[in-house]
């Protein structure tokens, strides 16, 4: 099954993820998961201050400066993994460095 791991945490913590060894090519979590063959995709997101939220209502395109929900915790990055079942996804997510200071939401992807 494919799962998206949404990396959530407070802005300051998320900022530190930018130079986190979890990122691909730095010998950490992502590389380990690539070796295991479960890593499909992963990116870090730039700060929410740079986010723009778009809605279309009627003919109007409405723009808001910032994320769609103002909360203390925000999404700082994501990974897509493919593994056997939720137990394996939990084990993989628990190994992610952000799990120890923020949290990781595991979301199954729709399969066609």
């Amino acid at each position: 099954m494919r799962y998206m791991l949404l990396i959530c945490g407070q802005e300051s913590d998320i900022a530190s993820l930018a130079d986190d060894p979890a990122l691909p090519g730095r010998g950490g979590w992502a590389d380990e998961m690539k070796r295991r063959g479960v890593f499909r995709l992963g990116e870090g997101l730039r700060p929410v201050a740079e986010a723009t939220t778009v809605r279309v209502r009627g003919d109007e395109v409405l723009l808001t400066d910032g994320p769609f929900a103002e909360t203390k915790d925000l999404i700082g990055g994501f990974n897509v993994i493919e593994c056997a079942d939720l137990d394996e996804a939990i084990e993989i997510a628990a190994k992610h460095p952000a799990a120890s200071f923020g949290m990781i939401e595991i979301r199954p992807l729709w399969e066609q």
Partner: protein
Amino acid sequence: MSAEVEAAVAAAFREEWGQIVATLIRVTGDWDLAEECAQDAFTVALQRWPRDGIPRRPGAWLTTTARNRATDRLRREAVGAAKLREAAMMSSPREAGDDEVAVSGVRDDLLRLMFTCCHPALAFESQVALTLRTLAGLTTAEIGRAFLVPESTMSKRLVRAKQKIIGAGIPYRVPPAHLLPERTTAVLGVLYLLFNEGYAATAGADLMRHGLCGEAIRLARTLAELMPDEPEALGLLALLLLHDARRATRVDDAGDLVTLEHQERTRWDTAEIADGVHVLETALRRGRPGPYQVQAAIAACHATATEAADTDWAQIAALYGELARMVPSAVVQLNHAVAIGMAEGPAAGLALVETLDASGALAGYHLLPATRADLLRRLDRRAEAAAAYRQALELAATDAERHYLTRRLAETTNQD
């Protein structure tokens, strides 16, 4: 229909429902289909058994009937290649071989179902509801009544839980060794909660919903048989049996709570106590004590004392001390204080209760002021005792508890 057949179907339902559903879930991967086909099999049994006689192995007969029903339905409904493949796979006999292999396969299914229902990725209330529906065979309406929620709410809860199992990819299996200890704790926790829901309602006038106690004991016994190497499963079973043995004396004819001290011990179920003690001894021989075994040992101290005055409070206090080390919990500490109050006198108990009170860990829990009140009363500090009883009364959740506290309050204030 003869009473004999009716009784046989009822007994098969009690004993085989969970196994039939568990096997059907494995072969079809479809929880709703599994339940429906199990239900159908019992309906067919009600028609056929009076005519053909009760089969030698009712469980095997019912499982085969349910499987055939599932195969038929999947074939009929098969729209795509995937469904046809499933149906084809089902017709290949996976349980071929001698009876022993088949039986052990079926027992594995039951364990798989237990662990999947109690998977920690499901909300605790969903775990409980799923366990009652799929393992114990209670209807959605019955489960709703037991947990004081409308049937529609319970139905939605079950639908969501099953949807999550499939959608999120919760595996249908007994967890591998490295996950087993924590997942076993989760299963034991669900069964213990089930029992407690039946033993003492958390709200309202309905103090006893004994059906849940019986289901919890039956499932705990099954789990203990399926996991012979897990002494905590035996510990839980022993604990439930030893509590249940005192059930009849826990409230009086007026529905008022009777404390352990005042229960009519001759009405305790001695056979159930003997069973509980035997199960506990089997568990303790494994030499790996755990919280359920210690709690069962405490319950055994109470259940085997012929009179309240014979209770070995020093032993109970020591066991609560051990339990507090295993599971740091303020409620355990409160019980430890009660035992110390009995073993070493009310002043020693009160000192522990005051420390707990000051920590604020049990704020809002009626048994904290109730315990303080009892200790103060025994120290003859009546005005303080009365104030503590009043405080407990404000926090008590059930009518039976309120009646008990009101009575104690009256006794304390009338002694002048």
